[in-house]
């Protein structure tokens, strides 16, 4: 087996999506010094026995890469937080060159990893693999209540009203859910630009406005999570504009926007990061694998 001290430590999320295993192969092409893969999975879903699990284990064994499957309960952020803390702590000696494949990791878990890893290193590499295509049917169901990320819940001013920055996704019901739950005085909707994956139709401004109209004040702005800074400067501009609010920031748009939102949080620790969980995802959520985005974050 490879020596942990020399190679990269790679974190991925187990999923039934094809791009989970295909993504790992792409990760290895870019980080062929990987010595261990830590595979996080949700004990409350069927990930435990999905076929990608065996494929990953076999692939890594052939290349003498160590593997560790870590069971988490995604619905319990307190337990998950403690477990991720202990996993990162157990590897602290070998965490010099960590790589996170964010493709199939929930945003909340990715942010938790960032939090614990940055205790030991100031640089994280990340990878994201787009699918070849998304299902045209529903993507997720059974949403849980929105929750603020532990230790990233901002510094709330007792005399300011609540404002939300939401990077919208394909599901306008989640936009409504967020507004109904926090009852913000103002919401700024960040709409992904471009027409990838039928974005213009599935994530249209009007769809989101329609479900919150009359309930709160809003504006919209355009953001490109696939740009060089993944939309960081746009988010920072919105944060600045909403200085009179206790800001809750949430990403439902392209996965890469979680990176810019996190970086924006580090620059503005008074804002709160919010996660909207879902208990059920469509098994046909995505097919194949598309482009890969690779980068690094310096904390």
């Amino acid at each position, binding site marked *: 087996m490879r020596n942990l001290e020399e190679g990269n430590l790679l974190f991925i999320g187990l999923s039934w999506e094809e791009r989970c295993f295909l993504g790992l192969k792409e990760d290895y092409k870019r980080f062929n010094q990987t010595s261990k893969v830590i595979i996080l999975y949700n004990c409350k879903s069927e990930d435990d026995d999905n076929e990608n699990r065996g494929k990953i284990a076999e692939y890594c064994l052939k290349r003498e890469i160590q593997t560790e499957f870590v069971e988490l309960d995604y619905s319990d952020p307190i337990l998950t937080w403690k477990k991720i803390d202990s996993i990162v702590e157990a590897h602290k000696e070998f965490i010099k060159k960590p790589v996170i494949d964010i493709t199939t990791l929930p945003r909340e878990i990715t942010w938790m990893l960032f939090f614990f890893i940055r205790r030991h290193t100031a640089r994280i590499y990340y990878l994201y693999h787009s699918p070849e295509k998304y299902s045209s049917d529903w993507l997720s*169901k059974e949403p849980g209540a929105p929750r603020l990320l532990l230790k990233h*819940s*901002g510094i709330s001013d*007792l005399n300011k009203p609540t404002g939300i920055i939401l990077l919208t996704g394909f599901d306008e019901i989640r936009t409504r859910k967020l507004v109904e739950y926090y009852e913000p005085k103002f919401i700024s909707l960040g709409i992904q630009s471009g027409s990838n994956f039928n974005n213009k139709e599935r994530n249209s401004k009007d769809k989101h406005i329609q479900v919150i109209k*009359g309930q*709160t004040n809003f504006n919209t702005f355009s953001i490109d999570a696939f740009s060089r800074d993944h939309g960081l400067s746009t988010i920072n501009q919105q944060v600045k504009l909403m200085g009179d609010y*206790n800001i809750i920031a949430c990403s439902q748009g392209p996965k890469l926007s979680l990176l810019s939102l996190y970086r924006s949080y580090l620059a503005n620790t008074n804002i709160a990061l919010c996660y909207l969980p879902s208990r*059920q995802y469509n098994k046909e959520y995505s097919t194949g694998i598309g482009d890969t985005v690779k980068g690094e974050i310096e904390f």
Partner: protein
Amino acid sequence: MKNPFEYEAANNLTTQEILDYYIEDYNYTRFLESKRNIFLLGDRGSGKTMTLLYNSFKIKYEDPKRNRSKDLFEKIGIHIPCNTPLFHKKEYLLFEDDFRVQIIAEHYFVLSITNAIVASLKDVREVIEAFKDFDEELKEDFSYIFNIPVSTKHSFLESISRWIDKEAFETQKQINDPKNNEFYQNALSLSTLVLPLIKKIKKVPLFKDSHFIFLVDDAHDLNIHQVKVLNSWIAYRDHSDFSLKVATAKVNKPIKITSTGGSILEGHDYTNIDLEKPFYNKDSEFGNLAKSIIKKRLEKISNIDKEPSHFFPTNPELAESLEKYKEIARKEGIAKYGEKEKKKVTDHVYKYARAYYFRDRANSRANLVPYSGFDMLVDLSTGIIRNLLDPCYYMYDAEVSSKKDDTKIEMIPPKTQRDIIKARSDAMWKRLEDGLEKEIEACTESQGKRIYQLFDNLVLHFRERLIKHKSEPRAIMFTISQVDNEHYSELIGLLKIAQMSQLLYTRSGVAKDDGRKEIYYVPNRMLLPTRGLDPNGQHARVSLKCNDLWNAAVGNIPIPFNDDANETNAQAELFG
């Protein structure tokens, strides 16, 4: 052009907007100003926050009608919203023991209350004057108790306000500190901060007889630890200086356990007040409230001095048809009871006139009923203010969008009303068809499907009644019988999810059989237009067997229709 029917959360309204929009109800004011602990129960959108805010000192002081009242400083209402980012923080749950969790939960609560007290008072002219001679002494006392440096530059209340800001900042910073998992050592509690502060304030003659009323809003948003803290305060023996008025939704009502494991009891520790009002006809308590709300909004926001019934006129064809069927029913009543039996004839008209109209529409291939008119909107609201404003908002919006100039909207044409009612009704059914699991946390896919089937069969049942039932054809509410059925609790689980989605409401009334109170269920009346039913309903509730409802939900089996069903004349009660 501002839409007069915007229904954004009351917390986000300005003082003037609250004064402009709120319609005072003296019944509630009386309870809210008492020294008793009260739980104010109401569904989402029923006006809980508005009621609390209107009774807060801050708003009262700005109200020219009330700020000269002699008891202005005797009852100090302090509004404490719980749906704020501070209350949604969960870091303290990372502590291993419940005791510490409770302490931090109370600390956040206390910071919010103290801030609200000080923010309510510190800028009020009379208060500034009243404190002048006592400021130094109070500052010295406070500084001694809390071992804090108090600014010489600021007044007592301003100094507390600044200190609370700092405390809130320090606590959150420490608890969020990536390198620190330590417990916050300087945590504050009701008895270490709020009560001593009230005692100090009462040293000032203007406040010597003051009773502080903590108006705790959205208590259903509190987590279990925060609820336990709140209950401990309710169980507090001495309520001479303060009392709690807690507004909460009917579903997900907070538990009644205190931090020490005791319980609070209705009647002994608190009183429940139901915010919903009887809403059976246009002259009901809710009908009058609805009329006042719409009239006031039209006047204050759009500068329109019009009766709501003129702003939302009824389609002439509908009005004419209803008159025609009234006459048919009247003649029928006279033939049955004789002209002298006026009451019986009136009852006959009430029961059957509308039923005949909707029955004929249901049996014909005619287009959709031209749903319109202010009374129709009141019926469609199911007695919930937000439900009343929702279609009005969309109607106004549609009119603004279709206009080519800047002229005032003087009324909403019946056609627009019908189109929007149809669209809002269709949208509600779509939510059901798509599955409530898409929006409700506690709902699974299978429950979502069952709820849709249950509502579909309920409405089919109501339609069958409309066509065939001899005495109560327009009943659109139900009670559940045979509750010892094995599926009762699962059925109630489904109904609770429907309540959380505002597709179903509960009311309490007196049972016909034994005079005891019973819960009955009222489906959101906005569901009815899509199926051609009459949202007006009538004073009757259908008794449906638990098993039949369960079979409808699980097996999509039609609910059996029985013309002799045991039904009760309904009269909702204000205080459930």
